[in-house]
């Protein structure tokens, strides 16, 4: 259903009557206003991060930081070792989650798409239902179980926890892509001497690249912004992802809102950047994961 949502039909722009043109101009104005109002929080984050420490307490506040300053970034982001470590930890966890998710989900989704064995329906149902489980419901028992397994405060523990959310989503996203690969093409490859593995690597996988990109991006961003597992499974500072570091410095920074907004902007940056370039994939992934039964 989201396939139709993301693939916006090329807008036909009939050179209609004058009245149509006026209506369209009004609509465009309404659209600009709605978008701007909607993004005020994002705008305010950026504006605040560019203000001096005096300027943030001005009443009424300046709507534009004049003159803008990057002192918050140099002070709170680039010269703070906690932030650098948090960013590095998040990068490690997010990359690890992406890799493990792909390794587990690719063969699973392929198997669930290609082999008509019993229980496929049950497994797909399981993959969908586990996505509805609250993260807290997993984080609490994981803390208890990981405590005895020595996985609390380890990258591996955090990667496993993140994959618990990412793998079911990935399988749900990938299976339709593999279902869409025509059986005849795979048959032809086999006649030409491919086995199950090489036909998967040379035929099915290249055709399904958009699905793989979707899964990779969604897994990475999910782990990058993840909060509950980091909060409960990373109690020592050295291992904490940036989301937890950011939540902790919130208390420490107190009213240094400009510094806090600068760190927030840096945490948001990879997400916004990925979104600008890969919007199509992210939207498809996050809606298909929930709506493809």
């Amino acid at each position: 259903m989201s396939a139709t949502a993301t693939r916006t039909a090329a807008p036909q722009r009939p050179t209609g009557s004058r009245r149509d043109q006026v209506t369209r101009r009004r609509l465009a104005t309404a659209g600009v206003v709605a978008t701007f109002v909607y993004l005020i929080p994002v705008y305010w984050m950026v504006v605040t991060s560019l203000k001096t420490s005096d300027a943030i307490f001005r009443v009424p506040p300046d709507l534009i930081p004049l003159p803008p300053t990057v002192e918050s970034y140099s002070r709170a982001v680039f010269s703070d070792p906690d932030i650098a470590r948090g960013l590095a930890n998040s990068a490690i966890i997010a990359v690890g989650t992406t890799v493990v998710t792909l390794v587990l989900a690719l063969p699973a989704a392929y198997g669930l798409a290609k082999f008509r064995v019993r229980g496929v329906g049950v497994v797909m149902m399981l993959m969908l239902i586990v996505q509805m489980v609250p993260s807290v419901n997993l984080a609490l028992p994981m803390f208890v179980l990981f405590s005895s397994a020595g996985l609390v405060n380890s990258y591996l523990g955090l990667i496993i926890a993140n994959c618990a959310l990412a793998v079911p989503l990935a399988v749900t996203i990938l299976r339709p892509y593999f279902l869409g690969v025509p059986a005849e093409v795979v048959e032809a490859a086999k006649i030409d001497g491919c086995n199950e593995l090489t036909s998967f690597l040379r035929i099915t996988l290249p055709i399904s690249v958009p699905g793989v990109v979707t899964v990779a991006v969604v897994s990475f961003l999910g782990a990058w912004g993840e909060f509950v597992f980091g909060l409960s499974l990373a109690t020592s500072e050295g291992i904490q992802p940036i989301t937890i570091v950011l939540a902790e410095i919130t208390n420490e920074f107190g009213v240094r809102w400009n510094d806090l907004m600068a760190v927030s902007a840096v945490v948001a940056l990879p997400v916004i950047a990925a979104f600008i370039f890969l919007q199509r994939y992210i939207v498809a992934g996050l809606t298909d994961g929930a709506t493809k039964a």
Partner: protein
Amino acid sequence: MLPAVVFVGATVVYPLLYSVLQSFYDVGLREVIQGGAQWVGLDNYIDQFSRSRFWYSGFISIVYAASSVALTFAIGLGLALLLRRDFRGRNVMRALILVAWVLPTVVSANVWRWLLDGSYGLLNALLRALEFLEGDLFWLGQQVTAIAAVVFATAWSFAPFAMILLSAGLQGIPKGLYEAARIDGASPWQQFRFVTLPQLRPVSLAALLLIFIYTFKTFDTIFLMTAGGPGGATATLPVYAYNEAFEFSRFDTASVATTVLMIVPIALSVAYFRTLRKETAA
């Protein structure tokens, strides 16, 4: 296929069952570290069910989820209807609005706390300029306004998602229905009321259920904005369960809360898949 199924079994199904089992044992921090928890039967349930805070957290979870869903849906539908019309730049606008949805919760929660700051927040500055407010108002410091604030922040994040789902639904409505309505002399409002709304019903139902499940289990937005406060006013079941476990080291009573918490999403997801099936079949 097998490794992934085993993985999901080990990392999702097993912890969930473990947690349910734990709700029948006496589990404090000592038992977590050393093991040897005692079976206590229904004691933890009896203990929790006799606490007004537990019932309040269940109640506020429903209030929070229901209001968030209503607001999310209203905003999402409004945006979907606006961006459905053909005008220049609408694809860019859609993409920009979707940024609200993908933003990490820590980021948006922090930004909301700053926007809602009692003395220097942008919202209060606006309200003062419009002469609705004199002096300071600490939104997150009072019960009713704190609940309203987390609902609003939640709706802001989820409305773009609702917009996507509803846009798909709107595209599925046959254009002929509108033409027929116009020929019969229906006003734009009547077209919306008698064509768009009924046609959008199946998609709306699925979207409402899905968003209810998502908001009902929301932890991070509330935890980061209010930590369940003030005075437990915004302690929904996930926040309550987290605090039981990590604030008071009661992993047993926390498991009671998560077990109860799980009932709603699972029951609703069964309903959700039914509507989804019907929708696909129709």
